[in-house]
């Protein structure tokens, strides 16, 4: 479905969104992703370095102590030392090198010869030792009574390629323990050392030292399992859950010893900085978005406001409020547009004034022509009747007729003057019961001569009477006359004008129908307005006054017309119930 965007503000917002917000969001997403990945890689690398360094230091520590014992064995062998001297050397060694708890020299039969111990030697020659440095083997690690990881180094002594006993040293990896204790990553990141058999032999977490005391096997630890599955020497890294805590761990091997050094840190701490940065980045992006929206909104408003102002002004002008002007001071094309609009509005006002002036002129001409038209006929009749009346050869009957004509036309003039006055100051209606057929008959008689003069047949059809309404006989006479006169004038010679009465329910209808030219539909609705006329002459007051009179008598007047076929006006009044005919005072 095609999206229709009807408002420029919406379009503008979408434009800002597409042009600025979307790239910003994309930038934010890429930044967050990079931050997370970069942090993870950085922490893994850092922790791997720690583990690798620790592994190397532990290896050196063990190997150097093995080398120490090897050097001691060289001192004891083939140097011609007495037992007492050997004993002294061993005892001094013990004090000098604290890692060695006991060093004992055994003969070929495995019996102790000299020992660093004052009492009976406790050390035994280990059976399951494995090489750690050339000539020195090391037993599996165990944890001694002081909770220190301990192993036994043993060196096979030879003389002339013959076995000459063993030198065994109980080696306490106290320094390794301390080394592991010193490794602290953040607040809760610790190192641990796992023996080849999976036994935990050192843990930097004080609360995990119990696991060392318990000789806890770590083979099930995810990190230990991960490093064991690796076939190369590279460190293994893993995120895993241990003790209900999510950790990031790195492990590396000490190949010479078969030990594993692992470093683990809670992810909550490892990623704390990144999380904070991420939060700050999110806030910054949101703030930027907000600023962008606000700036976009303000800028958009400044951009759209002139358009909206022009829109409002245009609507005002369209509604006829031509005094509306715009005040756009953006200094850009909108200012030019605003000035153009104002110029256009000024011009429209000027044009309207011109039109009004022209209309006033036309109206004046039309009114003048109407007055002339409406007055000329009565005046002419009066003049003719007066002239005929002044002749001596006119009989009395004719004189009476001329006199009545003069009186009638004077009445017409008077009524015309009343019409004009009525336009300026409407005259109150005086209601009386009147019989419609009778009033229509009077007007038909009055208008028939005019019809005859114009070659128009004036007919009347009366419904069975009496048809009584509440009306003003004089006012309704003016209405009939207006309608009849207009109909005669609109009807070409040979045509007809019919006035008919009818009773329709509780109403009485009077219709005036002609076979004239008809009124165009576009003008039909305005024919009852003041000074609107379809005729070439006349004030255009007749129908307006007629409508006002009808409505004052609680009646209605409707018109139906078809160009070329004629027009029909229908008056409709409430019928009076008692049907009593009272003739209004004439």
């Amino acid at each position, binding site marked *: 479905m095609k999206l229709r965007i009807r408002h420029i503000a919406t379009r503008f917002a979408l434009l800002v969104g597409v042009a600025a917000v979307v790239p910003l969001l994309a930038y934010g997403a890429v930044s967050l992703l990079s931050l997370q990945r970069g942090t993870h890689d950085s922490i893994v690398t850092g922790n791997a370095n720690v583990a690798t360094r620790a592994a190397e230091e532990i290896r050196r520590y063990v190997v150097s102590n093995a080398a120490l014992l090897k050097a001691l064995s060289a001192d004891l062998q083939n140097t011609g030392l007495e037992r007492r001297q050997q004993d*002294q050397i061993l*005892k*001094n060694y*013990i*004090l000098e090198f*604290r890692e060695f*708890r006991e060093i004992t020299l055994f003969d070929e039969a495995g019996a102790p010869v000299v020992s*660093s*111990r*004052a*009492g*009976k030697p406790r050390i035994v020659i280990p059976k399951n030792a494995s090489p750690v440095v050339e000539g020195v083997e090391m037993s599996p690690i165990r*944890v*001694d*009574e*002081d*909770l*220190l990881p301990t192993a036994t180094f043993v060196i096979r002594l030879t003389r002339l390629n013959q076995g000459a006993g063993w030198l065994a040293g109980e080696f306490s990896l*106290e320094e390794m*323990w*301390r080394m592991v*204790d010193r490794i602290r990553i953040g607040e809760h990141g610790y190192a641990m050392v796992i023996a080849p058999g999976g036994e935990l032999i050192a843990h930097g977490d*004080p*609360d995990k*030292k*119990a696991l060392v*005391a*318990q000789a806890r096997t770590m083979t099930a630890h995810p990190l230990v399992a991960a490093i064991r599955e690796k076939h190369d020497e590279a460190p293994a890294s893993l995120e895993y859950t241990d003790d209900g805590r999510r950790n990031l761990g790195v492990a590396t091997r000490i190949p010479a010893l078969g030990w594993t050094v692992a470093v683990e840190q809670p992810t909550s701490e490892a990623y704390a900085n990144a999380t904070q940065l991420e939060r700050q980045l999110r806030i910054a992006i949101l703030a930027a978005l907000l600023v962008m929206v606000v700036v976009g909104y303000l800028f958009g408003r400044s951009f759209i406001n002139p358009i909206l102002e022009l829109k409002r002004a245009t609507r005002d002008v369209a509604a006829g409020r031509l005094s509306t002007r715009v005040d756009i001071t953006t200094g850009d094309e909108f200012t030019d547009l605003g000035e153009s609009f104002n110029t256009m509005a000024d011009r429209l006002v000027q044009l309207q004034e011109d039109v009004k002036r022209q209309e006033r002129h036309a109206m004046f001409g039309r009114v003048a022509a109407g007055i002339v038209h409406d007055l000329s006929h009565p005046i002419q009749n009066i003049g003719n009747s007066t002239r005929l009346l002044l002749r001596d050869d006119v009989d009395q009957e004719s004189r009476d007729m001329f006199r009545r004509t003069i009186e009638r036309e004077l009445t017409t003039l008077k009524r015309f003057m009343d019409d004009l006055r009525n336009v300026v100051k409407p005259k109150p209606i005086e209601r009386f019961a009147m019989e419609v057929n009778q009033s229509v008959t009077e007007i038909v008689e009055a208008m028939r001569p005019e019809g005859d003069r114009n070659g128009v047949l004036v007919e009347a059809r009366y419904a069975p009477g009496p048809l009584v309404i509440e009306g003003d006989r004089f006012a309704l006479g003016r209405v009939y006359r207006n309608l009849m006169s207009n109909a005669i004038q609109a009807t070409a010679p040979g045509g007809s004008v019919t006035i008919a009465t009818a009773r329709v329910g509780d109403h009485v209808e009077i219709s005036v129908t002609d076979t004239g030219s008809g009124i165009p539909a576009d003008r039909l609705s305005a024919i009852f307005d003041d000074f609107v006329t379809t005729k070439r002459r006349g004030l255009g007051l007749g129908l307006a006054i007629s409508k006002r009179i009808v409505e004052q008598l609680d009646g209605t007047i409707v018109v139906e017309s078809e160009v070329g076929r004629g027009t029909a006006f229908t008056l409709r009044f409430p019928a009076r119930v008692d049907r009593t005919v009272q003739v209004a005072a004439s």
Partner: protein
Amino acid sequence: MQPSLAEGWTPQPDGRSVVVKLRPRITFHDGSLLDSGVVAKILPDSLKGSIGPVFTDLERIRPTGEDTVEITFRRPSPFLLEALESPIQRPGTPPVGTGPYVGARGSMTAFDANSGYYLGKPAIEHIEVTTYPSVRAAWAELLRERIDWLWEVGPDAVDSMTSSSSVAMFTYTRRYQFALAFNPSARAVRSRDVRSGLNAAIDRDRLVKNALNGHGTASVGMVWPQHWALQNNRPKPAFNPKAATEALNRARAKPNDRIQFTCLISPDALTERVALEVKRQLEGAGVDMSVEELTQEQLLERLGKQDYDAALIEFISGPTLLRPYQVWHSGAPFNWGHFGGPHIDKALDALRFSGSDAEYRTAVAGLNQILADDPPAVFLAWQERARAVSRRFSVPSEPGRDILGTLRLWKPAADTRQASRN
């Protein structure tokens, strides 16, 4: 000294007696009342067995009121006053005491809080004692929260345990010190020059560092380092290589003779390490010290027979001078090896009979001088140890003092509802 069962004491004008006022309503574990009459009856027997010759300084102990006891001396006797720190126990099997805990019925390893304890019933209701084959095993149990208190942790293990967040370590200096005690009748060390030379040859600070892992205090003699009489009266450290060389040279028959002697030790790794460090330092001074490890019984037997040159033993030496008196004075109850000699007896008796603080200080200075001039032993170091207690307990402590003294005030920490039960 602080009063315990006593509220206080008042020296009498005659200068030879003191009236001790007892706390009111003190009871033994069996509920019987401890009053002045009971004290007057029990205390002489208790002192007689524990203070040896000093007991002869006591003339009588008699009740002077329901809660007051008058103790009369034959002569001024600071040691007898110091001996009054001894516990009051009514004879029996087992003896009946007055302390905050009482042995649980039918058990030799369990104790119940003494609800009638005169300072208030302890917060911990019940204590059970369990033994383990090794410190490691006990430590593991402590970390597993199956036990709450590890009695004592040696200097080698302290460092590896102090960082635990679930266990609090309380270090304190034991009132015992390592001393290389000489047999005054042994030919190898009979010479005063030999003993003085050996005394001056040992660098105690180095010994503390190497043998005790730094967890100890170098000794300056027989007297507890915090003893009041040592204030402004502390002797110089004995370590003086030049004086050692001179003294030992004087002792040698020929200039290049090596002085040799044998040192007996008990089968203890720490004692052995101290012995080896002493041996090494003496080697540097041209002295060969052989180390012979014996069982405790063998050691006591050899000491009793004076069949030894020297013995490296951890002697009780504080906090009062009565303690070393009981070890180093001839005829004292703990002088198993006939240590010391007439000059030491004289110096200790000067202490024993000093009639004032000034005399006491002078006597302490005299003792220190004797120890420097004609040492009966090489006083080496006071060992620092630690007690490990689960942090589920709130333990009042003062730096350097043994928390055992505050056991009755221990209580479960605020957030701990129940301590572990073994």
